[in-house]
């Protein structure tokens, strides 16, 4: 491949990449700001993951150049990965069940013989 052809293949200007970098920094600052806002854990987790997915998409699309690749490559890589990650969510109902099954201490745990010796 000639240098000219490669230059055409590597689309995107340095100015565009600096804009993407600036947006990534702004979104990171928003995440740190959110960390100190009083809100429900589920709500904060949803916002943080939303921001992270936007940041990841910016990195993959522009820095990793996937936006400028063939659609067939994008369709081979992205949907399968998203589907596999979503399948991992199947474990969460068990983690919530496990939390509810945990022994609830009504009073401080009893002091055993061996722990008294220490």
């Amino acid at each position: 491949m000639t240098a000219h052809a490669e230059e055409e293949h590597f689309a995107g200007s340095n100015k565009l990449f600096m804009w993407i970098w600036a947006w990534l920094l702004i979104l990171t600052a928003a995440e740190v700001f959110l960390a100190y806002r009083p809100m429900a854990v589920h709500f904060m987790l949803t916002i943080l993951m939303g921001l992270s997915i936007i940041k990841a998409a910016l990195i993959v699309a522009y820095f990793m150049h996937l936006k400028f690749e063939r659609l067939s490559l994008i369709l081979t890589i992205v949907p399968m990965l998203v589907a596999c990650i979503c399948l991992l969510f199947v474990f969460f109902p068990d983690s919530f069940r496990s939390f509810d099954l945990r022994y609830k201490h009504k009073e401080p745990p009893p002091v055993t013989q061996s722990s008294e010796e220490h």
Partner: protein
Amino acid sequence: MSTEARAETFAASDWGGGVLPYRVGHRKLGMWLFIVSDSLTFSALLMGYSYLRASNNWPTPFPFYPSIVFATVMTFCLLSSSLTMVFGVSASSKGDQQGARKWILATIVFGVAFIVLHLIEWNHLIHEGLRPFSLPEHWVAAFNQADGTPPSPLFGATFFAITGLHMFHVASGAVYLAVVAARIKKLKHEDVEISGLYWHFVDLVWMFVFPLIYIMSVDIGGHLAK
């Protein structure tokens, strides 16, 4: 137009052999497949962490300084390293090998800064008493629930495993980039682009580790300050 000639215009002809159907070389496709598999490794680790967190009394011990300040500066280093890497790939695509080498070296500097800051942060936590399977005593006292349920001792295991594996990726990426920078005159543009893909992936993983491990573990209630 003959039937054979018309067949050339069908998309299916991409898969008939003799052409690169994705219009990328086999090495670049290999790197993409590696990135997919490594993404699943980190996804599984972060899911395991989330599982443990949802099923336990989980401590949230990170103060603004040093933990959050360090993690934010580390994020800045990684994002900036991705920018310098993309400048390096851009320079390489124009045939400017010296420029590409300069930007790749800048990327390595940011990567090493990330590792140094991370090791200082680890040192803080280890000095405080955090171990893979036990918490510092004052954390246990601070995060004990009203009904006496102690905080999970697995905080250290998940923290050191996930951030450690990520740090290993950054360190091996820095070595990989150093080799690319040293041999840049012998390498093709695609080789530089492939090393860039790996480096951006390391940055991408941190975009999930930072909020899940650090931001979600901020000591908002000031438990440890009491």
